[in-house]
């Protein structure tokens, strides 16, 4: 509670209010509200199908919610024009789960693309900016490689370098540690912390990796079946008594419905027979 009052006193950079989304009658997001403040790292946790990606795509302005509002730096993404949206987008850098690096371009060219396209800076300056960003993510030597020549961890780093190319206020990372070994994942956590400490960026990380979330996040939010069931510091989160949070923290399996449990049981029986 105390953190919430302190937080409310500060300005919210991203303000998500009552956002709901339904696909074909099924509610994927149900009245989600969340404030993210300047300079903090928020980890959005949740299992598969909890609505994490759906929320993320609304926050970065790829799609609009059915109802509710998303304010970024005072602009309502749900009600603004394409031109206003373009301005807001320049304040947000996104690193996608699949890295989404352009396969026909080298790492250098990938990181330079937003700078070249959205500014009129001269080539030497662009090269300087790209080198700084690649240095920051630890890929200073890999600039000439193509995405297919990179390892999984390097791809994520390259995607982050491209996301921060234009010094955005906000960086959104979708499952940065998915598919990486623990050592590489820990290295990425260090990098995410550096984005905040070194560049003063605000970071929203969507993840299902608890240890990573606890290591980097100032606050942790958890989605369950389209609703935000808890928001708090990692300590508060660990101490939460909410049954779904406990289940997630302790890694218990989801209780299947009776029908599918019956199916699973009969399948197992057949499998063993």
């Amino acid at each position, binding site marked *: 509670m105390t953190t919430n009052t302190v937080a409310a006193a500060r300005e919210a950079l991203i303000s998500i209010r009552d956002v709901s989304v339904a696909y074909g009658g099924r509610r994927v997001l149900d009245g989600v509200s969340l404030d993210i403040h300047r300079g903090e790292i928020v980890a959005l946790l949740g299992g598969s199908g909890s609505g994490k990606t759906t929320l993320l795509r609304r926050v970065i302005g790829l799609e609009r919610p059915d109802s509710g509002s998303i304010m970024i730096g005072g602009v309502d993404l749900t009600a603004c024009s394409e031109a206003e949206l373009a301005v807001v987008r320049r304040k947000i850098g996104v690193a996608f789960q699949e890295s989404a690096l352009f396969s026909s371009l080298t790492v250098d060219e990938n990181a330079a693309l937003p700078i070249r396209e*959205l500014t009129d800076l001269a080539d030497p300056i662009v090269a300087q900016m790209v080198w700084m960003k690649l240095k920051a993510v630890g890929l200073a030597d890999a600039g000439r490689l193509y995405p297919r020549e990179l390892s999984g961890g390097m791809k994520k780093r390259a995607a982050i370098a491209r996301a921060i190319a234009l010094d955005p206020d906000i960086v959104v990372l979708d499952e940065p540690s998915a598919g990486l070994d623990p050592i590489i994942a820990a290295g990425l956590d260090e990098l995410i912390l550096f984005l905040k400490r070194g560049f003063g960026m605000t970071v929203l990380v969507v993840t299902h990796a608890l240890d990573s979330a606890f290591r980097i996040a100032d606050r942790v939010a958890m989605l369950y079946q389209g609703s935000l069931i808890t928001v708090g510091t990692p300590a508060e989160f660990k101490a939460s008594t909410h049954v779904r949070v406990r289940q997630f923290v302790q890694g218990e399996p989801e209780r299947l419905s009776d029908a599918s449990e019956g199916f699973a049981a009969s399948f197992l029986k057949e499998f063993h027979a």
Partner: protein
Amino acid sequence: MIAAIGRTAISSAADVGTLTIQLWRSLLRLPTALPMVGRGRRWRTAVRQMMAIGVSALPVVALMSFCLGSVAALQAAAELRRYGATRYVVEFIAIAFTRELGAIITAIAVSGRSASAIAAEVSTMVVSQELDALRVMGLDPIEFTLAPKYLGALITLPCLTILSTFFGIAAGYCFLAASIDMTARVFVRDALASIMLRDVVLTLVKSLVFATIIVHVGYMEGLRVSGGPEAVGRGTTAAVVNATFLVILADLAATALFYILGWSAAG
């Protein structure tokens, strides 16, 4: 039954709508892929696309045209020989290729190579979120991915059509030189006499229409892909089948139009 027909009609109508919007937006963005007036180094992408769509299709188009030119010459000669009119094969081949065969052979070869390649490339970009990445950077995927391909096809298809026509007519010459010892001078004179500028221009216009169909159908089928790798395969197949079918349909429509307007009459 009626419901199935209705569903097909609705989805076809939706496809036509999608294609029209896509065509319009890409036409607006086309200048960005040009050198000088375009944005930055975007024209280099267009050049790469010309290589992929046009230049690398050169051998197959040339070979197909030469083979079909030979087939057409043999078939025509089989009939004309009975009247001692084998030398009119020249006119037959020249007219057939400048009016029709050059453009359609090129379009079918390119839709087999490039409609599938475009669909595969675009669907991979969808799956790997590259198009989303462009959008969140505030960049238009149409401008980045479709416009260079479209420009590349618009420039290379007419060139390939001319090349195809050349090879088809050359096949006719090889046949006539071998069978009735026709000299190159006579062949060229007869061929040039039967080629009309209007035919050439109309055929090149048709090839622009075919370029449009191939690129846009490939792109649309690529965007539509959702799901795993087998969906990519289905998408590429659909792209080739639909592009080829639409090319032939457009050919029929254009030829019928020219006929009604009286543009296809000789003399």
